[in-house]
């Protein structure tokens, strides 16, 4: 197994969709650059399980923290001020947290690769 694959497998709660996307995005770089991009990505990435736990926090009264963490300030404020749209929004996000997290992580991976490309140019 090459070090890049090992690094990918070390990320917590990695799913198939995310891994395939990551390999596709990293494919254009050479191996040392891939490792640099993965180190940047590891800092930017959000763990889906943490997003799930923050969504569950909404059922305890503090809703919308997961939206802030995923960088959606408007949705976060809306959830926070209305109790997660009267709990309905929180329950929707409990179903949908994987997709929310995957969207954020795909953006983060693309940004990490772009950063490495700019530095190497």
């Amino acid at each position, binding site marked *: 197994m090459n070090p890049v694959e090992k690094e990918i497998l070390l990320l917590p709660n990695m799913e198939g969709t995310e891994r395939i996307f990551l390999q596709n995005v990293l494919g254009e770089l050479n191996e040392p650059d891939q490792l640099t991009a993965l180190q940047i990505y590891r800092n930017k990435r959000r763990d889906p399980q943490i997003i799930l736990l923050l969504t569950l926090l909404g059922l305890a009264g503090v809703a919308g923290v997961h939206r802030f963490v995923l960088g959606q300030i408007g*949705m976060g*404020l*809306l959830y926070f001020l*209305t*109790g*997660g749209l*009267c709990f309905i929004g929180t*329950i929707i996000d409990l179903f949908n947290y994987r*997709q929310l997290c995957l969207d954020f992580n795909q953006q983060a991976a693309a940004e990490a690769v772009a950063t490495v490309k700019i530095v190497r140019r």
Partner: protein
Amino acid sequence: MSQAAFDSSQAIPNRREASQSALLRLNRRLFPVRVFNKLNREAIIWLVALVWLGLNARFGGIGLCPLDALGFNHCPGCGIGHSIGLALRGDVSASWSAHPLGIPALAVLLNRILLLTFPSLKFFPKTLQL
């Protein structure tokens, strides 16, 4: 024999291509760069919710609030559905009195739907993504 099997497996993507709906092919021809993402599940949920609220404001439909069903009388989001529905029908003052945050909420939800459907559009800078 093995060559024939290989050929048939190669043919599968082509057949799928052919069976794609005319709308999708038209979409691909209109937008060579992929602008229109596949309609996201979250976007569908928000769209259905908005339509439902808009109809509810007219007909005064059923309440869906789980807190109300449990017997609580007040929560910080009370009346926001009604407020969004009234805002969709253009009744600004009634919307404000139902819940002051109704119109901002509507704007945020519409922005979210548009961002999910057209990911390449940027309405706000990335640091202020709503």
